């Protein structure tokens, strides 16, 4: 697996939200994309999933340009996303939500059982609540459900859009721990979008910094943790005023 975004631009009407960015995600990595609110992180992930049109550049998945592949086929290619705000189906049960995670199944029963068990091992809470409506879960549980649902498709690359958003500190630690577990134990490659730069940089191998649609830095995550500019702007501990 190799995901390569090459000189990608994305427009909303006449406004260019993503201005020619390039990102590489290699097999087995956790790559994080950090940036302030409105930088274009969500737009980038949506474009990789096919929800937004590419206006220039390419998205290469294992060397193939997938920028014209319809969104619903990208799941089958191996790209799953837990979107910003979790995007669970509130009126469906936890189990139904999980089943939706890979809608196009060839071999339905046995494969599905296996996928379910894998997700339940990771999130025992979801197993306990499998019959409960998704909309009645707590924020943290909903985030688990969103991630679990994405894992149902056995993605080659998992896209996570601000999984820590709106969660209590305990739950944030829990979610980040699980992200590492998914990467090390399931061997899933992860592209993690976060505003919680501290946590994201601690978990990731490499990182990109996005500012108003442009990549302004690219480095090993541990290096960025010690970068004075990054500390000032995103970690709130530098000399600058921050954002």
């Amino acid at each position: 697996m190799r995901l390569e975004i090459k000189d990608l631009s994305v427009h909303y009407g006449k406004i260019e939200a993503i201005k020619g960015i390039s990102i590489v995600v290699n097999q087995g990595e956790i790559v994080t994309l950090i940036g302030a609110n409105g930088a274009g992180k969500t737009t980038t992930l949506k474009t990789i999933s096919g929800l937004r049109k590419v206006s220039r550049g390419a998205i290469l998945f294992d060397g193939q340009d997938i920028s014209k592949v319809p969104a619903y086929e990208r799941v089958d290619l191996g790209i799953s996303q837990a979107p910003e705000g979790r995007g669970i189906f509130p009126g469906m049960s936890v189990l139904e939500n999980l089943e939706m995670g890979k809608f196009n199944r060839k071999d339905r029963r046995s494969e599905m059982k296996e996928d379910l068990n894998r997700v339940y091992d990771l999130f025992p809470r979801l197993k306990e609540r499998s019959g409960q409506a998704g909309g009645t879960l707590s924020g943290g549980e909903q985030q688990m459900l969103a991630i679990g649902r994405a894992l149902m498709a056995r993605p080659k690359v998992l896209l996570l859009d601000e999984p820590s958003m709106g969660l209590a500190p305990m739950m944030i630690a829990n979610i980040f721990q699980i992200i590492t577990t998914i990467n090390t134990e399931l061997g899933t490659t992860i592209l993690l979008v976060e505003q919680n730069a501290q946590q994201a940089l601690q978990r990731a191998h490499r990182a990109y910094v996005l500012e108003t649609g442009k990549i302004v830095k690219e480095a090993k995550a541990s290096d960025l943790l010690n970068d004075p500019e990054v500390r000032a702007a995103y970690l709130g501990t530098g000399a600058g005023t921050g954002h």
Partner: protein
Amino acid sequence: MNFSVVTSQFASLVLQGVALGLIYSLIALGYTMVYGVLRLINFANSEVFMVGTFTVLFIQVTVLGHAVTREPMHGWPLILALALSLIAAMGVCALLAMLVEVVAYRRLRAKGANRLASLISAIGVSIFLSESWRIFTDSRPHAGPRLLEKWSFGEFHGANFRIDTMMAIFASLIIYMVLLRFVNGSRLGKAIRAVSMSEENSLLMGINLNRVVTLTFAIGGLTTGAAAFFYITIYENTVFNVGFNLGIAAFTAAILGGIGNLRGAFFGGLALGLTEQFASAIIGSQWKAVTVFIVLVFVLLIKPSGIFGEAVQQTRT
């Protein structure tokens, strides 16, 4: 005003109201299925109904060659003739509804046009269909043969349990329950529910949106086609603009129950059918259509989200 009819004809009014109401429900399901998925009022649904009624006549008169004046039929030939016209009406309506979606809405959707554009397109298709039918049929009403002898199972306090009425009631209930099971239990039904909750998140699951939309229009066409068949078996004639009143009534029923909601369409239709029967018995049948509009205006004023509805504002986001 004549309130004494309410007591003297109570049972009869209820029975007629339920039968009419369930026909409304079936058409309302057509509006509500599409609205649930696309947040679009498919105004062409009333003309899908109209074409359905003509399909029934076409099968019975032209294909099977039954003159309008013929004697009622019995046994297998009767069942065959009814089944064939029901299946044809449902099939033609489903195909027409799918065609309308492809011609009138799909490109607008792909371009991300706003809902108002789709609404205008919907009204355009509706006018196009009814006006072309006006030309084909010379604006004349068309009558159908009485294939089914209208014998009665019996009377109860003045309510006449006629076979056509009972058939419409039972078949509508069955169609409604099958549809509920399909939407709640089947894989494709779940896809419909998922899309109605969120298009983007459905795409992220690998759901082919266009296919779900086509399916939804097809289902709406099927129920509307069934309504057309029962309408013809009860009322035995149709005209190019039959869809107008029936369509408005069904649309009102859908709003009344809470549009986008299957249960809402079902009970909204029932409530409206009953209201209409009682109102026309009390104030006079010339007020029938007016009652529908009064109900529509009142619902919009007092509870725009309908009886069972999620708030309309909420579903729009």
